[in-house]
């Protein structure tokens, strides 16, 4: 079986801020927001992992995004973690041009948490109504 985690660590040796192995099958890798797209491209295209989902959380220190990848041959789940420190205007490069399946989850994170995905082809409301007031993000802590 291929050592996917080892290959990621080798390839992004300088970019990985923190490596966490909660168990043999649950791995977390911290990246800077600017390095996420390259890492996603390597993991998805070259290693053949599957994008399970993307999750976003409003943390005290910023908006945290987790890109969960599943390597089905070994059952490992690899999560790329990144922190968007500027809560006023969080920006990150979209991964939809690389993975079509990420389109809806990025739209959902955009409307619920207010993260702008640069390069997303179709950034419009998914779950909320189309005339939802701009700048109101229900899953932010400051939302009343």
């Amino acid at each position, binding site marked *: 079986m291929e050592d996917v985690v080892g290959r990621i660590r080798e390839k992004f040796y300088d970019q990985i801020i923190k490596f966490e192995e909660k168990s043999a099958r649950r791995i977390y890798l911290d990246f800077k927001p600017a390095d996420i797209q390259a890492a996603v491209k390597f993991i998805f295209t070259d290693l053949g992992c599957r994008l399970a989902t993307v999750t976003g959380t409003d943390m005290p220190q910023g908006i945290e995004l987790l890109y969960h990848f599943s390597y089905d041959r070994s059952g490992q789940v690899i999560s790329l973690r990144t922190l968007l420190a500027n809560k006023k205007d969080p920006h990150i490069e979209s991964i939809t041009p690389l993975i079509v399946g990420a389109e809806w989850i990025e739209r959902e994170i955009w409307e619920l948490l207010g993260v702008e995905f640069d390069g997303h082809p179709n950034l419009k409301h998914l*779950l*909320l*109504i189309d005339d939802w007031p701009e700048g109101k993000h229900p899953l932010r802590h400051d939302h009343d």
Partner: protein
Amino acid sequence: MNLRTKALTKSLAVFHAATSPCNNCDIEVLDLFTPRHDVERFGITLAGSVRHADVLVVTGVPNYKTAERLKKLYEQAPKPCFVIAIGGCACGRIVFQDSYNSPCPVDEIVPVDLYIPGCPPKPEAMIAGIIKLLNKLKGK
């Protein structure tokens, strides 16, 4: 009891409208049509379109999107159309009453004839509710 009411009580066609439920009530509604509970023995069948339905079964809390669609569904239904709210969400919004995406409960959008609370209600409770509706139709 006139002929129309008599025919109606023997053959209710049900349209199931899921207005953003968690699917728990829907699974229990599905149970009603399985051999164990089998509401077809009372002449109740599922209709593929609300235009062919006598009863509109609503599950879940309407959000801004589904509230509009629920109203449209009711307008399309031939009258008389009976509305059954199934589950705590459809009956009174329970924990979602302060939600950002929940404008109003079901009974402010369409007139509800029968409330079946529970999270989810048991199929037996739904059958008991339907029998109450049928008895109401028969004037009992």
